[in-house]
């Protein structure tokens, strides 16, 4: 490689290293602000801002969902399998909301450590698969088909 090209190559690498370093320092400085939500453990550890709204995320505990008689207010627990925080929400829930589902709720902590949500979003996981029912049906079908062949 001739010296001119070599020096231009070094220049390009320096540009990359420089912007990489700048962005790494910037994101490290803003680390807390880039977090979209806090987990129940982080809230229990006192990381939640006092009197300001923040987002809380975790799984809806099994068997914790209770509706009030007006039908719109709902109580449930959000857990990260270490700590659990009770949540109260009044409004319309997303389709994916169910027990065991991940959710992200925006709201404030009340004085008795209950999270009063203004907004609840469902957090989808990265797994895509056919319903277990469909699998079971397919299996049953293949068994009955092989049974018919045997006859």
């Amino acid at each position, binding site marked *: 490689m001739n010296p001119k*090209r070599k020096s*231009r*190559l070094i*220049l*390009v690498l320096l*540009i*990359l290293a420089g*912007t*990489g370093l700048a*962005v790494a320092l910037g*994101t490290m400085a803003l*680390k807390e602000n*880039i*977090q*979209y*939500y*806090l*987990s129940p453990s982080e809230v229990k550890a006192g990381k939640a801002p006092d009197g300001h709204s923040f987002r809380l*995320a975790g799984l809806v505990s099994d068997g914790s969902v209770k509706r009030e008689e007006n039908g719109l207010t709902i109580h449930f627990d959000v857990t990260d399998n270490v700590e659990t925080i009770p949540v109260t929400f009044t409004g319309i*829930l*997303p*389709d*994916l909301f169910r027990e065991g589902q991940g959710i*992200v709720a925006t709201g404030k902590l009340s004085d008795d450590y209950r999270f009063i949500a203004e*907004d*609840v*979003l*469902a*957090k*989808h*996981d*990265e*797994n*895509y*698969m*056919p*319903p*277990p029912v*469909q699998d079971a049906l397919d299996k049953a079908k293949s068994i009955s088909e092989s049974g018919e062949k045997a006859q």
Partner: protein
Amino acid sequence: MNIWKSVMKFIYHFASPKHFYRISGKLIPWFGGLAAILLIVGSIDGLFFAPVDYQQGDSYRIIFIHVPAAWMSMFVYMVMATSGAIALIWKIKLADVVASSSAPIGAAFTLLALVTGSIWGKPMWGAWWVWDARLTSELILLFLYLGFMALESAIEDPRAAARACAILAIVGVINIPIIHYSVEWWNTLHQGATVTKLDTPSIHISMLIPLLLMALGFKLYYATVVLMRARNKVLYAEQNNGWVKAIIKAQ
């Protein structure tokens, strides 16, 4: 050292406008035909034959557009940044042509990924848009593409424009690992990686196959369109050279 020299000689030979024009003309029908077949087969498989998702039902089928578009939005940018570096270091003009031909295509893929994600997000998450790290970094990618195109048209001298754009493309490439790892480095509403991780993909094989068919189809579509655009640009830039005049005369 001799091998290096002959490799470089081959690259310079291919990158000469005349040979690029000839070879790309032969490649385009193959790439285009294959892209059409893959996109048709992938769409039919994805929309009619892939099973419904256990949680999302039929709504998940948008991933057959959304995921390939998002992958391409990052891939095209990396092509632009690599071309920019090649153009700066080795002064190969064709690399500038490839970068500038790629920008609008990459911007279209990015916009498609953002729009399809938003359409999916409303029923599934309950929000059209959230400012989490994945969505925000993808939006920045769209602005990088638009910035590249704006910078290119703002500078009148084509050589100066190409050099400025190459530097912008290289600086912006730092956003690509941020987009990819955003779902691991920070808490995001966007779910983690399903396919592009070092583990086995967490997607059923009957859904993975149409997804990969579509992804390959998108890639070949990009190859087709970028070559067509680059050919036009090469012809325009070389309009005063003998070989272009010969082509025009032959027609």
